[in-house]
C-alpha cells in the first residue's frame, strides 16, 4: 500500500515536470530573465560609457551644422546644412542608385537568362560564362574593378572618348547633354500624364469589349500614339520650349552638360552586372518550371509562338520568378551600401560620417538600420502587390 502511494506520488511528480506547458513556461521565463538581465547590463554599460565620453544621447544632434561636403547632392545641400539633411541626401542617393540598378539588372538578367535557354549553342555558352563569372566573385570586387580597373584608367578630359549624341567619357565620368526646359514646358508633362491615363483607359475598355464580344482592338499602337503623340503635339503647340546644354571640351575639363561621376557609374554598373547574374538564374529556373505540356497545349489550340510566350509561358513563369526576384532587389539595395568603399555618398557613407563626427554611435546605427528596414519593407510591399496580381487564382 505504502509503496503504491510512493509510486503514485513519483509518477505524478515526474509528470508535472514533463508537462509541456510547465516546461514551456519555465523555459520562457528563463529566456525573459536572461534577456532582461543582459539588456539591463548593456544599457547600464552604454549609459556609463556615454557619460564617460561626454556624449549626450538623443536625436537633437540632427539639427547641428554638418560641416562636411557631399559630392553628389540631388537636393540642395551645403556644408552649412544640418546633419539630418546630410542623412536625407544619403538616403536619396541610395534610392537613386538602387532604382537605377534594379532596372538595369532586370533587363540584363532577363536577356542573359533567356540566352541560357537558347537553342543556339554559342549564345548559351556566352551567357553561362557570364553567370558563372559574376556569381562567384564578391560584389565589392566588381565595384573596385569598375572603379580602379576600368574607369580610373580612362583618358584625361583632354582626350575624352567622343560618344554619339554629344556625350563624352573620361576618367571624371560620363557627360551627356542636359535637357533645358523652357517656358511653357509644363504642357508637355501634362500631355504625357494625360496620354498615359488615356492609354490605360483605352486598354481597359478594349479588354472589357474583348471579354464581352471577342472583338479585338489594337491597344498597343493606340497607346504608343497617345503616349508619344500627345506630348509631341504639346511640344509643337507650346513653341518648341526644349533645348539642350551640350558638354563642351576645354583644355583641362569639360564644361556644361550633365556629369555622371565615376563613383556612381562604377557602383551602378557593378551592382547591375552582379545582380543580373542571379536574376538570370531565377529567370531560367522560372521558364524551365513551366511544363512542356503547357506550350504544347497552347500550340494545339492554334496560338502563334509569340502568343504562346505572352499568354501562356510568361504569366506562369512570372509566378515562379517574382518571389526570388524580390529578394534579389532587396539584396541589390543592401549591396548599394558598398558605396562607402569608393566614396559614393549613400546612406551608409553619410550616416557613417555623421556618426564619426558626432560620436552618436547608437543613434547613427539606429537610423541606418531603420532606414534600410523601411526600404526593404517598401520594396517587399510593392513586389507583394505585383505577386498578388500574378499569383494563381484558385477556386
Amino acid at each position: 500500500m505504502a509503496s503504491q502511494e510512493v509510486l503514485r506520488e513519483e509518477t505524478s511528480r515526474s509528470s508535472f515536470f514533463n508537462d509541456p506547458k510547465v516546461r514551456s513556461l519555465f523555459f520562457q521565463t528563463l529566456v525573459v530573465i536572461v534577456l532582461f538581465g543582459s539588456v539591463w547590463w548593456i544599457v547600464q554599460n552604454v549609459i556609463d560609457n556615454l557619460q564617460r565620453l561626454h556624449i549626450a544621447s538623443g536625436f537633437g544632434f540632427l539639427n547641428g551644422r554638418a560641416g562636411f561636403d557631399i559630392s553628389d547632392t540631388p537636393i540642395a545641400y551645403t556644408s552649412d546644412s544640418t546633419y539630418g539633411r546630410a542623412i536625407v541626401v544619403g538616403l536619396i542617393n541610395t534610392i537613386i542608385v538602387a532604382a537605377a540598378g534594379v532596372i538595369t539588372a532586370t533587363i540584363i538578367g532577363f536577356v542573359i537568362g533567356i540566352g541560357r535557354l537558347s537553342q543556339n549553342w554559342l549564345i548559351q555558352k556566352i551567357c553561362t560564362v557570364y553567370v558563372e563569372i559574376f556569381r562567384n566573385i564578391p560584389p565589392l570586387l566588381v565595384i573596385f574593378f569598375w572603379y580602379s580597373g576600368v574607369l580610373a584608367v580612362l583618358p584625361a578630359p583632354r582626350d575624352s572618348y567622343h560618344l554619339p549624341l554629344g556625350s563624352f567619357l573620361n576618367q571624371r565620368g560620363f557627360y551627356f547633354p542636359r535637357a533645358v526646359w523652357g517656358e511653357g514646358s509644363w504642357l508637355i508633362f501634362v500631355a504625357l500624364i494625360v496620354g498615359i491615363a488615356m492609354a490605360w483607359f483605352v486598354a481597359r475598355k478594349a479588354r472589357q469589349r474583348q471579354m464581352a464580344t471577342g472583338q479585338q482592338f489594337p491597344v498597343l499602337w493606340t497607346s504608343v500614339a497617345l503616349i508619344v503623340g500627345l506630348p509631341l503635339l504639346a511640344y509643337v503647340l507650346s513653341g518648341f520650349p526644349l533645348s539642350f546644354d551640350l558638354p563642351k571640351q576645354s583644355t583641362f575639363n569639360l564644361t556644361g552638360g550633365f556629369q555622371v561621376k565615376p563613383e556612381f557609374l562604377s557602383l551602378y554598373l557593378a551592382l547591375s552586372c552582379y545582380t543580373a547574374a542571379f536574376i538570370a538564374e531565377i529567370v531560367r529556373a522560372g521558364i524551365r518550371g513551366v511544363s512542356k505540356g503547357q506550350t504544347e497545349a497552347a500550340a494545339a489550340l492554334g496560338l502563334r509562338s509569340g502568343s504562346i510566350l505572352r499568354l501562356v509561358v510568361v504569366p506562369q513563369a512570372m509566378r515562379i520568378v517574382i518571389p526570388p526576384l524580390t529578394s534579389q532587389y532587396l539584396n541589390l539595395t543592401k549591396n548599394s551600401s558598398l558605396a562607402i568603399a569608393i566614396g559614393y555618398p549613400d546612406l551608409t557613407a553619410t550616416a557613417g560620417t555623421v556618426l564619426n563626427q558626432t560620436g552618436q554611435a547608437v543613434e547613427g546605427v539606429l537610423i541606418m538600420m531603420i532606414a534600410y528596414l523601411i526600404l526593404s519593407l517598401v520594396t517587399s510591399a510593392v513586389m507583394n502587390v505585383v505577386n498578388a496580381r500574378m499569383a494563381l487564382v484558385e477556386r
Partner: protein
Amino acid sequence: MSWVRTEMALAQPAPTSVRGPIAWVRRNLIGSLGDTILTILGIAIVAWVLPQVINWAFINAQWTGPDRTVCATITQGGIQPDGWTGACWAFVNAKFGQFMFGTYPIEERWRPILVAILFVALLVPMLIPRVPRKGLNAILLFLVLPIVSFFLLIGGAFGLPHVETSRWGGLLVTLSLSFVGIAVSLPLGTVLALGRRSKMPIVKTLCVVFIETVRGIPLITVLFFVSVMLPLFLPAGVTFDKFLRALIGVSLFAAAYMAEVVRGGLQAIPKGQYEGADSLGLGYWQKMGLIVLPQALKLVIPGIVNTFIGMFKDTSLVLIISMFDLLGVVKQNFSDANWATPQTARSGLVFAAFVFWLFCFGMSRYSMYTERRLDTGHKR
C-alpha cells in the same frame, strides 16, 4: 509463300544530315534566320572580347620584374612601348606573400602554412564520400583543428611568439573568417530556425525579430554595429579584438540567412515524421536531432552551400572596418608607389577575383555533386 526473316537487320548509321559536325552546326548554330543572326552576334562578341583578354592576360603580360618599370610605358616612366596594355603579374608575384598572409611575420609564416596543410588534410577526406570514419574526421576538423589553429596562429604559448591579429591579412583572414563563420552559423542558424518554429511565443518572437532585422539590413551596417556599438555595450576597460568583432558580425549575419534556409527544410518534412517521433516517446531534442533535422538538412544542402558561398564573398566587406582580407590587401597595395601603374589595379583585382572564383565555383560544384548523390527520391 511467306518469307520470315531469321536474323535482325544490322543497325544502319544515322544519315549524315543528322550526325557529325556539320549537322551539329546546322542544328545548334544556323537552325533558322534568327539563329544565324544570333550566332553572328555571338561570334562578334567572342572575336571582340577573347583576343583582347588573351593578349592582356598572357601574351602582353609581364610575369616577373623588380618594380613598376616593367609594367609602365615609356611616357609613364617605364620600359614598355607606348600604347602597350598587359597584365602586370609581376606585381602579383612580388606581393604574393602579402596577398596570402598580410603582414604576418615572415619567419613565422610556416604556422599559417601548417594550418592550411592540416585543414586540407582533414577537409579532403571529409569531402570524399567513400573515405570511412566521417565522425572522427568531423570532430578533428570542427573541434580539434580550430583549437590547434588558434594556438598556432596567435601563438603566445608552447614557445611560439605571439602574433597580434592586426598583423593577419590576405587569404589567411578571408579563410579563417569564413571557416569560423561557417562553423558557427550552421548550428546557430539551426537553433534560430527551430526557435522560429517553436510553440513558445516569446522564444518565437525573439527569433523572428532577430532574423528579420538582420536580413533587412546590409552586412556593412552589422559590421558597423559590432565595431562601433559593441565597445559601448561592454564595461569600460573591456575591449574586444577587432578580428573577433568582425567574426561576431559575420557569424550573426550568416546565421540569420542560414536560419531561413533551415526553416525551409523543416517545413518540407511531412507532419507524420514529427508525430511518428512523438509517438515513439522521443523528447524534443531527440526528435529533432534524430528524425527531423537529418532529413531537413539533407533537403536544403544547396541552400546551405549558397549561404556559405555568400558568406565567403561577404568576408571581403571587412575592409570597410579597416581589416585586410585578400581584397583589402590587394587594394592596399595599389597605393605602393613602387608598383603604381595604370595596369596594377586591374591585375591585382583580376588575381583576387580568380582566387575568390576558384573557391566559390569549387563549393558550388561540390554542392551539385552532393545534391545528386543524396537525391534518394525524397523530393516531391
